[in-house]
């Protein structure tokens, strides 16, 4: 417990800044969702024919997994806050639209007819009668949307939007429970606070007798109640407007020389991302925007293709098998040259490999290895029916992953339960699974003292790290090539694993590890 508080305290400034990001993203998204959702709700409450398809659509959108949605949005909106906000807005729309529509439709038709009959215009009926009466229901919808939004925003970290999700994912990637909690606990508290605040707003703006039908009012109380409602509503609107306006301004791209360095969401990628960012900042006058910790290969690649990210480090095998759909090959040279050639056709320049080969390996606990005498993957064939296999979700879906593995080896596991990133180590350590896919440079292999099984049939692709950069950026800033090439051949498997270990086990930050590495090599 004290350890947790210590680690929490150490990163308090980061937590605070991520928390502020998180609050900002939440209010902004919900604000936009309210601005869109209420008018749409009003519109469809007037037209039942429109209501069906609109509500149907918001329902369907709600059912799309958020990661799929983010992946889908990158080509159009890029990475960072824009797609994250778009996504959260989309998810927040349903409860707001639906509740607005329901709230408006549930008003006694006689009341509405009376309002029209005594000479109110349509706008007056809406503003003075319908909306006030529907307000409790609408506010309940906003409350649901706001609390959900706090949750959705954590996912935004996947595409580099920041927020408390950053800590959660970093923690998951590095199997660091304290880091996960440092993100998760403030997120939970934020959800509760948001629930309370919106609940408070709901109570204030709702006409008093709709909450308490027997309330005893007099002239003074009515006056005070009306004034309070007015002040609070105006205040809430002002805060929302300020945040939305304040957010629109910085969207204008920064002037001058800028390069966006991306990375995937695991330790090695974070270290590499920081290394290149530091190098570029140090050696050139180009300003670096660090779009690190992006959710997955697809997200990075799409962001690169759509020019939202200018460079990131890919792996030859991933590019060959997965991004370019070239099937499988064990010829390292062929793979590299094919990738370089095909990427060039898409306007992406593949630079020289960094050196290490971060291929997939299978890992088991030492006791499992001893029991079944396991040294390579072929040894696993006999034992597999006794063991539970936990590949990463990505490995489980890749042709050059699970398919290639099963094609080469006769493996029949007792069960397969795919698991993401660092969680696999926790699972295998606690004997929830027995065989793990891991990356050969993974520092956690060292931490958990797992036995790495050799790919004796060369079934799996080689994964040499290669910097990929947009051709146009390279043309614009030719000085970049030399800077990036500084890293060529500088990191082998062993040294990469050590850097990863420093982050994953020693608890150093990827930024520090990158900086220290560059200093030790005399590059800074």
């Amino acid at each position, binding site marked *: 417990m004290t350890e947790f508080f210590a680690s929490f305290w150490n990163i308090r400034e980061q937590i605070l800044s991520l928390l502020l990001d998180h609050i900002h993203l939440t209010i902004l998204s919900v604000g936009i969702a309210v601005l869109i959702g209420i008018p749409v709700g009003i519109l469809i409450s007037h037209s039942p024919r429109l209501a069906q398809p609109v509500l149907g659509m918001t329902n369907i959108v709600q059912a799309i997994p958020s990661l799929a949605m983010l992946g889908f949005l990158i080509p159009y909106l890029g990475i960072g806050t824009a797609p994250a906000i778009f996504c959260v807005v989309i998810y927040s729309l349903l409860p707001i639209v639906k509740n607005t529509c329901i709230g408006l439709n549930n008003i*006694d038709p*006689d*009341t509405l*007819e*009376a*309002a*029209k*009959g*005594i*000479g*109110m*215009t349509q706008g*007056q009926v809406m503003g*003075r*009668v319908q909306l*006030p*009466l529907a307000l409790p229901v609408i506010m309940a919808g906003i409350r649901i949307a706001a609390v959900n939004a706090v949750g959705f925003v954590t996912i935004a970290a996947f595409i580099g939007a920041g927020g408390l999700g950053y800590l959660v994912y970093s923690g998951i990637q590095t199997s660091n429970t304290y880091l996960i909690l440092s993100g998760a606990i403030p997120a939970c508290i934020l959800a509760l606070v948001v629930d309370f605040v919106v609940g408070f707003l709901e109570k204030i703006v709702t*006409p008093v*007798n*709709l909450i308490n*039908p*027997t*309330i005893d*009012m*007099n*002239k003074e*109380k*009515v006056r005070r109640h009306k004034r309070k409602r007015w002040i609070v509503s105006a205040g809430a609107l002002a805060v929302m407007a300020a945040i939305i306006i304040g957010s629109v301004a910085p969207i204008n791209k920064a002037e001058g020389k800028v390069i966006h360095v991306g990375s995937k969401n695991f330790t090695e990628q974070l270290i590499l991302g920081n290394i290149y960012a530091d190098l570029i900042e140090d050696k050139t006058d180009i300003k670096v925007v660090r779009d690190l910790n992006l959710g997955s290969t697809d997200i990075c690649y799409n962001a690169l293709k759509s020019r939202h990210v200018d460079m990131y480090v890919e792996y030859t095998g991933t590019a060959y098998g997965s991004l370019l759909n070239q099937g499988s090959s064990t010829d390292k040279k062929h793979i590299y040259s094919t990738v370089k050639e095909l990427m060039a056709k898409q306007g992406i320049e593949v630079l020289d490999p960094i050196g290490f080969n971060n291929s997939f390996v299978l890992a088991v606990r030492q006791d499992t290895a001893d029991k079944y005498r396991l040294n390579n993957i072929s040894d696993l064939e006999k034992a597999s029916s006794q063991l539970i296999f936990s590949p990463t979700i990505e490995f489980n879906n890749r042709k050059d992953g699970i398919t290639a593995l099963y094609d080469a080896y006769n493996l029949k596991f007792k069960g397969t339960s795919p698991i993401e990133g660092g969680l696999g180590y926790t699972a295998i350590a606690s004997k929830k699974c027995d065989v793990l896919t891991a990356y050969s440079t993974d520092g956690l292999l060292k931490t958990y003292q797992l036995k790495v099984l050799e790919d004796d049939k060369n079934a799996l692709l080689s994964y040499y790290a290669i910097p990929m950069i947009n051709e146009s950026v390279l043309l614009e800033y030719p000085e970049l090539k030399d800077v990036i090439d500084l890293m060529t051949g500088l990191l082998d498997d062993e040294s990469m694993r050590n850097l990863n270990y420093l982050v994953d086990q020693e608890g150093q930050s990827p930024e520090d590890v990158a900086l220290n590495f560059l200093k030790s090599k005399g590059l800074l």
Partner: protein
Amino acid sequence: MIRFENVTKAFKQNEVIKNLSFEIQDGEMVVLVGPSGCGKTTTLKMINKLTSPTSGRILIDDQDIAKLDTVKLRRRIGYVIQKTGLFPHMTVKDNIEIILQIEGIDAAKREHITSEMMRIVGMDPEAYLYRYPSQLSGGQLQRIGVARAFASDPKIVLMDEPFSALDPITRAQLQSELVGLQTRLKKTVVFVTHDMDEAIKIADRICILDGGRIVQYDTPENILKNPANEYISDFVGRKRIWNIPELIRVRDIMLINPVSCTRNTTLSECAELLGANEINALPVTDGENRLIGIVYGADLQKQSDRTGLVGEIMKTEFPTTAPEKNLLEILGFIRERQLDFVPVVDEENRLIGLITSKNLMTVLSQQFVDTEGER
């Protein structure tokens, strides 16, 4: 004045109002009455353009309302509906003032009008201004509904079954108050109800609708006495009139063409007439049918000589009644004076009929015993 000119209203293929033409005079309380589906509410809602006619015109003070601004028109017309249509989230004060607020009347003036309206409908402003509709009884809600309708001082007030959800006692009370209010404020009131008793009680004129047509448009009295057709007498109910004895006039129940004699009729002839008609008094008229006296059977009995003339024994001091007197008045009169025979005379003292105790008995028994064979 509200005038309907050949107004037809169809919902899709279904004509609910068929070529309706009628007029409502200023200051008149007209009740539209009929069974459900007869088109009465539709007719009402066409006046404030909540529905618009399929064809035909509606004119208010000779202006075609189709050409008037809808919102402005509605603000000149008060509107009260059955479920009051009060806004549940507003205080009584805001409910009454809402249109005044929208029109930008200043607060002090609004407050004055609101308090005035509350007093007019019999509600204490002090106690109720800051209550909410959910805190009021049904009768109080309707009073506020009426107050709201009258607050902007409209010339016309439309009321759509405003009292039908109330208990009978409250309803009767509000009906009387409405009549009082209307007499005082002289609004043109169009009132829709399915309740014939209500219509008769409050209406200056009743417009009976059936199947989208006017079946009869007349005063309550005329409708009760001279139903235009079988449908109306069925709808009105043949015995309905007994609920309102004020509407039964001496003219309606008296014996007409009564036997009479002249001053020169001999007493023996007179005795014969009394005997033959089983009556115990006989009116005496002059040559122009003017009533000049009455011969009582009792006086005749005292005369041994039957050759004398009526003129010698007739009484010239006697009670008479006028044909416009109603049933209650004549009954009271007869009871008070212990009469069993009252001649009915017009303004020129001409004998036009007779009320006798026997004939009263026959009339009164009609409400319990059907004499004409109907239900």
